[in-house]
């Protein structure tokens, strides 16, 4: 029995959300009086032994170039092999585009119970219960996971890792992967590089129709840069093609849970709130004092975004170094 955590690489580095998953998994292992192992898939020059700081004692590394492109089918085959090797009973995966599909395929392969969007450490005092977000953040469920293998996908910001000085042992791992996992040909990939990804971001600056047009996004992007934040947008904005679809946050887009969500010119339709209600702090900037978003906000400023944003950027540059 052990805990296995999938540590996702993005451009050769372990993602921040996965570092949280490592710490979460190590905590679960401690509660279950067992050990935690990380699984890293793809080539990387990152110092994997240092993942020990998050509490894992071992890192299994599948250093195979063929797996550098995120292929959830192949990753699920690797994960299942690692589960067998480690006799893992609990598997922890940070939510992401890859992580979600990986979790689902693995649940089917391993006949494991799967709970998505977990928001707290499990209660193992009597069985195994986890709290998770449902109804797109409008409620939580406490779900009992029956005997047998369990997979959890974690929302961002569930734990704040406290690092130790430990190092993990790194073992190379090369399980066999069926050819059928590579049946899809990737014809083309479009990926914004160098941007902070929304699912990994601690701070998000997001714009709505109040930004008046794609050509006016500069002040928002400048504030994002000053705060080391990712940029997002509301559904109307991506529907109008002002911003790419992958930035769309809301009921039918990405659900995010950053430390700070700064909404600029977004009125706050219930469908948009559904995508951001997991945020720790919500800031709303809108010229309409009646905008419903203010009711869901922690801080609000009634004013013109084109006046406010540059001033916030200036203040952020002065205060944050």
């Amino acid at each position, binding site marked *: 029995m052990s805990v296995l955590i999938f540590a996702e690489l993005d451009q050769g580095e372990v993602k921040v959300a996965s570092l949280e998953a490592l710490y979460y998994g190590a905590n679960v292992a401690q509660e279950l009086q067992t050990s935690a192992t990380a699984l890293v898939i793809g080539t990387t020059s990152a110092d994997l032994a240092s993942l020990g700081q998050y509490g894992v004692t071992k890192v299994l590394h599948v250093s195979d170039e063929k797996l550098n492109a995120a292929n959830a089918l192949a990753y699920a085959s690797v994960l299942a092999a690692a589960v067998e090797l480690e006799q893992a009973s609990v598997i922890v995966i940070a939510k992401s585009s890859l992580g979600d*599909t990986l979790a*689902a395929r693995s649940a089917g392969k391993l*006949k494991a119970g799967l709970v998505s969007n977990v928001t707290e450490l499990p209660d193992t005092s009597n069985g195994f219960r986890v709290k998770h977000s449902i109804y797109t953040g*409008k*409620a939580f469920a406490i779900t009992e996971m029956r005997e047998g293998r369990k997979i959890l996908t974690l929302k961002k910001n569930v734990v704040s890792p406290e690092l130790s000085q430990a190092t993990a042992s790194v073992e190379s791992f090369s399980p066999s992967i069926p050819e059928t996992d590579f049946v899809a040909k990737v014809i083309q990939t479009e990926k914004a590089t160098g941007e902070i990804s929304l699912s990994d971001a601690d701070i998000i600056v997001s714009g709505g129709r109040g930004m008046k047009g794609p050509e006016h996004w500069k002040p928002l992007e400048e504030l994002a840069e000053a705060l080391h934040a990712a940029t997002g947008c509301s559904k109307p904005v991506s529907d109008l093609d002002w911003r790419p679809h992958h930035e769309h946050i809301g009921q039918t887009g990405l659900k995010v849970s950053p430390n700070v969500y700064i909404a600029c010119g977004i009125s706050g339709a219930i469908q948009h709130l559904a995508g951001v209600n997991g945020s720790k702090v919500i800031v709303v900037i809108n010229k309409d004092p009646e905008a419903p978003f203010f009711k*869901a906000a922690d801080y609000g400023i009634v004013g013109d975004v084109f006046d406010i944003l540059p001033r916030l950027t200036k203040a952020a540059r002065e205060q*944050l170094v």
Partner: protein
Amino acid sequence: MKILVCLSIVPDTTAKISFTDGDTKLNKTGVQFIAGPYDDYALSRAVDLKEQLGGTVTVLNVGDADGEPIIRKALAVGADDAIRVNAEPRDAYFVAEQIAAIAQRESYDLILMGRESIDFNGGQVHGIVGEMLGLPSYSPVMKLEITGHTAQLTREIEGGKELLEAPLPLVLGCQEPIAEWKIPNMRGIMTARTKPLNVVEPTGQDSLTQATRFELPPAKGAVKMIPAAEAETLITLLRTEAKVL
């Protein structure tokens, strides 16, 4: 082209969520139920593909008889027949087992559903069904074209998208803008009344997970308004008061 579309039946996106029976059950009073919005996109694309390539579209729901008007609506927008597995959708594994059991008998070219149901937001069923049937599954799919026996699909990935080509059969989790939602017309509504809606009993084992209790999020404190003239203090407040910068 033989297509199966799996429909979840869920509270409307604008529904106010609350619980009853000591927080163990959803309070359905005043809640309107709809087909999952993502599933609805999958259905619309399936109907378009049928019109383009010929074939059939079957809709499948795991749920009780209360959902039948919603299933009829799917027939009214162009599905040919429907199957309702007469069981409460206990968890993703259980639902996937029902879908896989039917798919094994019928061999569909495409099994489409939403990327996730908007009640439990699991996003699990397509992947589990794929494994159970030994088929590839991809999600979330934003664009889908079929040429001969090959699917070209655009999948959203972190920070972008990916164009894939894969042979049928496939299991796909769909999202906008794969198709426009369809509104049934009068002729569709009339013909839907006589289209077959077969009710079958569930197969397979029990669920692997069980929600035991529900909670609402803690009430939000009052918003702190900052006068526009002092907007800069926001950065200070985020640093020193909220301690998030």
